[in-house]
């Protein structure tokens, strides 16, 4: 019994090391006082200060934020509606599994195929209206498309766990649909919705492939900026930027985990 435990704990630590050591290396070099090279030359927060003076990076950060917030808002609302519709409506059996499959598709499809499909779709839409030039609007639409599926999945699992009993009780007490949704389902669902929203936010923040294919020259986001910069020269500013993005993502994920954990304990 003990032997198995030891093996498991060693693999766990090794896996975490494998995942996190490269990230620590980036954080390490972001406070290193040298422009090139791999030798430790002293602690400095200069690179972080230079970050905030770099106009390109600030513009890219603003774009990333706007994109993430708008697409998260829209996709959370759409995803919640989708989840409630899928779970609470009495679909016939086969329809249920088909809907389930369709819901899982955006999650499973490789990003690059999704992005290529977006390029073709927007090319077609461009023929109908010039509002679909590559740019922030395109990126928002593309992000909403894949985020909705993730939000719907999270919310749906929460819906299944709260069960139909409370709602049936409410119906027995003459609650109409609007009252039911607003005063009963949504408040019970709130932790799931928030968790889904945070997941969507993190996905949008980190997204590269889909943003790359739908971005215009004016709508550079942070991942795109880092990609372009790294192909030319890797300055410690990039390390500082990466560390900051990493911290934001970690905080979001921890918060999301906290929310869902509270829910399960209840």
């Amino acid at each position, binding site marked *: 019994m003990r032997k198995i435990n030891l093996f498991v704990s060693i693999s766990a630590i090794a896996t975490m090391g494998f995942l996190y050591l490269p990230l620590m290396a980036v954080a390490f070099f972001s406070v290193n006082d040298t422009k090139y090279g791999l030798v430790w030359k002293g602690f400095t927060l200069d690179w972080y200060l230079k970050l905030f003076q770099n106009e390109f990076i600030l513009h890219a950060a603003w774009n990333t934020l706007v994109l993430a917030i708008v697409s998260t808002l829209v996709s959370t609302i759409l995803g919640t509606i989708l989840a409630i519709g899928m779970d609470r409506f009495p679909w016939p059996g086969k329809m249920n599994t088909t809907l389930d499959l369709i819901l899982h598709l955006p999650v499973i499809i490789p990003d690059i195929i999704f992005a290529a499909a977006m390029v073709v779709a927007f090319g077609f839409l461009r023929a109908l209206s010039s509002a679909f*030039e*590559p740019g922030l*609007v395109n990126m*928002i639409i593309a992000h909403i498309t894949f985020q909705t599926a993730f939000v719907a999945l999270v919310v749906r699992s929460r819906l299944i766990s709260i069960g139909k009993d409370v709602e049936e009780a409410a119906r027995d007490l003459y609650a109409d649909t609007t009252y039911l949704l607003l005063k009963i389902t949504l408040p019970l669902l709130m932790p799931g919705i928030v968790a889904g929203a945070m997941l969507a936010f993190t996905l949008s923040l980190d997204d590269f492939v889909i943003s790359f294919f739908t971005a215009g020259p004016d709508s550079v986001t942070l991942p795109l900026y880092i990609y372009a910069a790294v192909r030319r*020269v890797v300055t410690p500013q990039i390390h500082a930027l990466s560390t900051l993005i990493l911290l934001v993502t970690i905080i979001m994920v921890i918060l999301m985990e906290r929310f869902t954990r509270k829910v399960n304990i209840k």
Partner: protein
Amino acid sequence: MLMVLSFLVLLSGSAWSGGGELKIFTWSEYMDEENMPKDFEAATGIKVQLDMYESNEEMMAKLQAGGLGQYDIIIPSDYIMPSLINLKLLTPLDPSKIPNMKNLGHKFTQASFDPGNKYSVGWQWGTVGLMYNKAKLKDSDVTSWAILFDPAKNPGSFYLIDSVREMLGIALVYLGYDFNSAVPKELKAASDLLIETKKRKNCLGFKGGVGGKNDVISGVADAAIVYNGDAIQTVSKEPEKYGFIVPREGSEIWIDSMCIPAKAPNIDAAHKWINWVLEPEVGASLSNYNQYATPNDAAVPFLTPEDLKNSGIWPTPEIIKTLHFVKDLGKDNNMIDQAWTRVKSH
């Protein structure tokens, strides 16, 4: 929700003021990215926005994936011009808006890919060669491409250039074939050579010219295949530490030109840019900055005299004999694509 979205659309729309803005899609570090746009704005009042790429293929893919209405000026190399013209991705130039066209050298008005400058005006021309760290490699070591391709030699850590025609062409001339060969047997031999070279532990992989040059400077690599101007910007400042050479088997000579994409948002401003770049002082300050050779005859008197004497920038006749223009191979472009995909995926 619809309100928020439409509000956002309006906001982002106002940032794109079509009237006084010029969007340029160019190679990275190909002009003084801080000052040249400011000088243009001071001269004409038009704001400039720069976007950069690392290879012609990347630029063309971006144009075809919806970027046609996004940029006013692109800077393609000579060999990709026939494809751009055939696919109707370019706007013909209006010579009445470019009076300074007369400043172009005669060779650049009769180029085989665009005789009469219907679609393009020369920007810079140059070569591809090897930049090396003199602390690790002696001048006598690098006279032949064998320093990279011969497994018996030890060139320290090096980058190959991440550009299809240049890299395949160099492998082909090293093996004794034609730079523009499309013979399947020869392409296979060249791609085999590249795959073997890429797998050696000294080879750090493929990187664009600018990235490779920056890595030699930072010490990450000891040698890299780069464009001549990029290398010479550093070599001319520190000639004891870095060197640049076109090895004897030969290499590429290229001309980059300014073109206007088919659905450019501000064609007027694009013409103004082209005319402004053709002014003698502007052309000279561009070449003095990026250390490439200029096609603008009127600019030559304003160039730094050391640059004119530098055979890395203005190659001597013996070097020119070993340099080849990349040719557009029409249907055979397919073979080149296959060879390159093979190199990258093995």
